[in-house]
């Protein structure tokens, strides 16, 4: 794949020497997505569902077609595809609507230290409110979740398994299909955080057989303000909504109301219309390139970067075995915040911090790290600039006395 040809699809990469290595936080936005949202705002910027005039019909058709595109993209049905504000909101919906009502004292929730805060804090809340217990899968010394380690914590008390598909710090892929099979054999329900997998590789929820799965638009070339919750139809059917109001009901009396079926019962009020339409455009864009191509490309860049990093002194890579385009590292003795300014000065955008994953930081026993993540719009020149800067930074910080 020739990534330089993709750079031109991203306005933020035009007329600039920006090397953008922070996709794991948010991806850049391609022209086709911006255009599609502009079309909405310029030609039919009206509400959905409730209007019976042409413009509103068009908005509704586009909005629901977007849901179909997204559903089909992950192998789900229309009813199983709920729009939310983002992955965090979707993951919270599972904890609030399923967890708070179905778990009780003595039940166990299997989680991991690799979870993003948005997949651990909602379950801390469930544990506190219901008396259920959080059980951490032991990680391997490299920091991985394995099927074997999962078996050690799985028991007939396990009612819920809450795991990330791909870690946003370690870039490891969880052996989620095997884990789900085992969890289901115990009758447990599985919530998968796919915020870092869906943007990068084909995910089929039916094949994976997860019960719930969530991801965000802004990490996959889509807009901010939208995320998706997938849930198995019979589970969503049984859940009570957690937000109530316009558009999620069909009959309202003074003291009672009757709710619509899924997905609508979870989507009160005016939905993120432009955002849903934009996300569908992002999926079209990514598919036009092909996920195998994207995955192979990211992998190639990551390998090249890792090879070079390994040859350098005074650099610690925390995830040399990363399965994805995410590399987490530090310049020894240099706080990542000091380091990141060095890169920024050469217009290399990279993350420094705890990446909303403080439990991983504790596991690695560091306060914070640098993280570089690659996507389709990166190319070999980016890797070279990155590596040159790592070398220069290493030399600079050594010289000034770190």
């Amino acid at each position, binding site marked *: 794949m020739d990534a330089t040809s993709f750079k031109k699809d991203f306005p933020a990469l035009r007329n600039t020497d920006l090397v953008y290595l922070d996709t794991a936080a948010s991806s850049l936005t391609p022209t086709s997505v911006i255009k599609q949202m502009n079309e909405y705002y310029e030609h039919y910027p009206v509400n959905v569902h409730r209007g*019976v*005039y042409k413009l509103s019909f068009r908005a509704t058709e586009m909005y629901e077609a977007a849901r179909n595109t997204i559903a089909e993209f992950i192998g789900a049905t229309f009813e199983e595809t709920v729009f939310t504000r983002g992955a965090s909101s979707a993951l919270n919906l599972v904890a609030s609507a399923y967890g708070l009502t179905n778990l009780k004292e003595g039940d166990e929730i299997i989680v991991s230290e690799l979870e993003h805060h948005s997949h651990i804090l909602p379950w801390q809340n469930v544990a506190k409110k219901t008396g259920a217990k959080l059980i951490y899968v032991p990680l391997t010394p490299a920091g991985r979740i394995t099927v074997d380690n999962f078996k050690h914590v799985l028991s007939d008390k396990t009612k819920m398994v809450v795991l990330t598909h791909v870690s946003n710090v370690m870039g490891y892929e969880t052996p989620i299909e095997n884990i789900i099979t085992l969890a289901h054999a115990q009758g447990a329900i599985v919530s998968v955080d796919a915020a870092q997998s869906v943007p990068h590789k084909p995910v089929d929820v039916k094949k994976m057989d997860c019960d719930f799965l969530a991801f965000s638009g802004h990490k996959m070339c889509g807009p901010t303000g939208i995320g998706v919750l997938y849930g198995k139809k019979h589970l969503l059917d049984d859940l009570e909504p957690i937000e109530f109001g316009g558009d999620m009901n069909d009959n309202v009396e003074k003291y009672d109301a009757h709710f619509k079926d899924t997905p609508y019962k979870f989507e009160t009020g005016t939905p993120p219309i432009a955002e849903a339409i934009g996300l569908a455009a992002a999926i079209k864009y990514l598919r036009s390139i092909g996920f195998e191509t994207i995955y192979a490309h990211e992998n190639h860049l990551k390998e090249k970067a890792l090879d070079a990093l390994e040859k350098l002194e005074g650099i610690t890579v925390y995830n040399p075995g990363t399965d994805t385009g995410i590399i987490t590292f530090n310049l020894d003795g240099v706080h990542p915040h000091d380091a990141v300014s060095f890169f920024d000065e050469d217009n290399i955008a990279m993350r420094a911090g705890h990446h909303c994953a403080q439990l991983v930081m504790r596991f690695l026993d560091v306060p914070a790290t640098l993280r570089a993540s690659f996507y389709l719009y990166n190319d070999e020149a980016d890797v070279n600039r990155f590596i040159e800067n790592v070398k220069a930074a290493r030399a600079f910080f050594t010289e000034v006395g770190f």
Partner: protein
Amino acid sequence: MRQLENLYRQIIMDHYKKPRNKGLLDDARYKKEHIKNPSCGDDVTIQTFVEDGIVKDIRHDGTGCSICCSSASVLSTRLKNLPVTEALKISENYINMITNKPYDETIELEDAQAYEGIKDFPARTKCATIAWKAFENTVK
């Protein structure tokens, strides 16, 4: 000349003002299906009595716009006394016509043909199909 004039033709207005087979029966042999379109308040119930594979009777009731109410009446006259398979084929054909999909023009829709003009009002297709979908559910 407005296209709406095409649509609100004699047939539709006739069934709207003088609905046939209206009113539900308290008869266990009938299968009932209730559909609501919450966004506009259309609310239709269809009751069907099937015996030996034949749609012996269709009743309907509800509230809604003229398209919705009249189409319940029209379907009741068109499909009554037909074999279930044939009724379903006609229904499918009708819904395809309304939703601008390919349909078999040789199948005689009779009065239901009057709804063809709905094509020009995509926002109203739901009004014209809701009763037919309810019917399908009673015999499927």
